[in-house]
């Protein structure tokens, strides 16, 4: 691409990269939720699902690397854009009265960085199996699969851990209420009639994700789901 350097250095080019990587991450968030919700179907479902994922082997790593690159580009270009934005108004207003710019849209960097911190914790917690004395004691299930079900239940029985998950998910929701409609605009897939519909759709989508994801720690804390093995 002869013009590519100009593209990724331009404001619009950078935004398009942020939008495209955002879409990749959003698709992951949907897939991850559908996978996790299998906890409500019982230990067999989640443990089999987790085993299938691990059995993907190199394919799993391809997906992981793609996601990692998407996360890196998404953050790198957003931070670069945000720094430009700060430089663009060295002297601020004494009084500021926003009409249309939503709270979520004005705090994407903050919500994004908290989500990043949450994701790091989440990976250490459930993928690295840290922060819980019971995780190493878990025995494999009858099919000799790792007992993800019990791991999730024991993990979320800690109120502080669950609270942090809910806060992280809330900020992800805030991020997505803007992000999910914003990427259409950045990629030029928008017009006057579509704008309010996309904004509404994005809010519904983000809050559905929030309900879906938080249902798991909430169900555990309410005692609706019990571990498959007692420790």
């Amino acid at each position, binding site marked *: 691409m002869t013009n590519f350097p100009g593209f990724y250095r331009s404001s619009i080019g950078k935004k398009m990269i942020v939008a495209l990587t955002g879409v990749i991450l959003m698709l992951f968030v949907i897939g991850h939720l559908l996978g996790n919700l299998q906890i409500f179907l019982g230990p067999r479902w989640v443990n089999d699902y987790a085993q299938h994922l691990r059995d993907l082997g190199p394919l799993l790593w391809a997906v992981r690397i793609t996601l990692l690159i998407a996360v890196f580009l998404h953050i790198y270009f957003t931070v670069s854009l945000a720094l430009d934005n700060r430089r663009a108004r*060295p002297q601020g207003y004494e009084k500021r009265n926003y009409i249309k710019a939503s709270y979520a849209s004005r705090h994407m960097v903050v919500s994004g960085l908290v989500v990043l911190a949450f994701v790091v914790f989440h990976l250490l917690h459930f993928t690295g199996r840290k922060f819980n004395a019971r995780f190493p004691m878990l025995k494999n299930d009858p099919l000799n699969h790792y007992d993800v079900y019990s791991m999730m239940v024991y993990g979320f029985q800690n109120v502080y851990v669950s609270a942090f998950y809910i806060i992280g998910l809330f900020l992800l929701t805030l991020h997505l209420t803007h992000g999910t409609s914003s990427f259409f605009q950045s990629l030029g897939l928008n*017009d006057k009639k579509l704008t309010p519909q996309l904004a509404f759709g994005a809010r519904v989508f983000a809050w559905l994700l929030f309900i879906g994801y938080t249902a798991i720690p909430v169900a555990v804390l309410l005692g609706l789901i019990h571990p498959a093995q007692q420790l």
Partner: protein
Amino acid sequence: MNFQLNVWRQANAKSKGKFATYEARNIAPDTSFLEMLDIVNDELTERSEAPIAFDSDCREGICGACALTINGQAHGPKHPAAACQLYMRSFDDGKTITVEPFRAKPFPLVRDLVIDRSALDRIVQAGGFIAARAGSAPEANSIPVPKHNADLAIEAAACIGCGACAAACPNASAMLFTAAKVSHLAFLPQGAPERTLRVTKMVRQMDAEGFGNCTNTYECEAVCPAEISASFIAKLNREYARAVLQRSVGE
């Protein structure tokens, strides 16, 4: 009506500015905001004080010269309207009104509320025109233009270049201005020959001027006195993507 004004005063670009308080007394409700400033300035002149410098020209909402941020909103609380079409009846009697210049790095301050908006002119000079001299207006039906496109082109062409979009944007981005200037030509056959180069050059100039980047907050369209829709920014993004793709394959 009576008001207390909290106005940004700054002698020149280099000096340090600060807010100063003035009283506006016995103002008729149908006085425009700029006329109210004229009245205050008359009193200041009588007291041998420097009048508040502010820009104005047509005072009927078509020139875009009156760049004022009033109570934290570009062009004040009544939308859509330029500050010159804002009347004092829009404010509550006895209230304090804060008046600031448009704040953005590419809009250097000249004096008090006067800013230099030539950055916007330079974006247009980069490609917001048709290079060929087309002569006088041709027969209207000799170049077919679909009605929908003509409507959109006229909508975009309504931009008066006041800079309120950049002033109101949380990131000081001039995307709505550039979008309007790119779109009104992109929708018409006359703009077609230079379409690819135009958007590339104008976006490059916009970035070079030091404007911020659009984060799709749509604050711009909320303050635009010409009601330019932020959907033109989507159009600009489409035009830009198309240009990059075309140039990448060597067209």
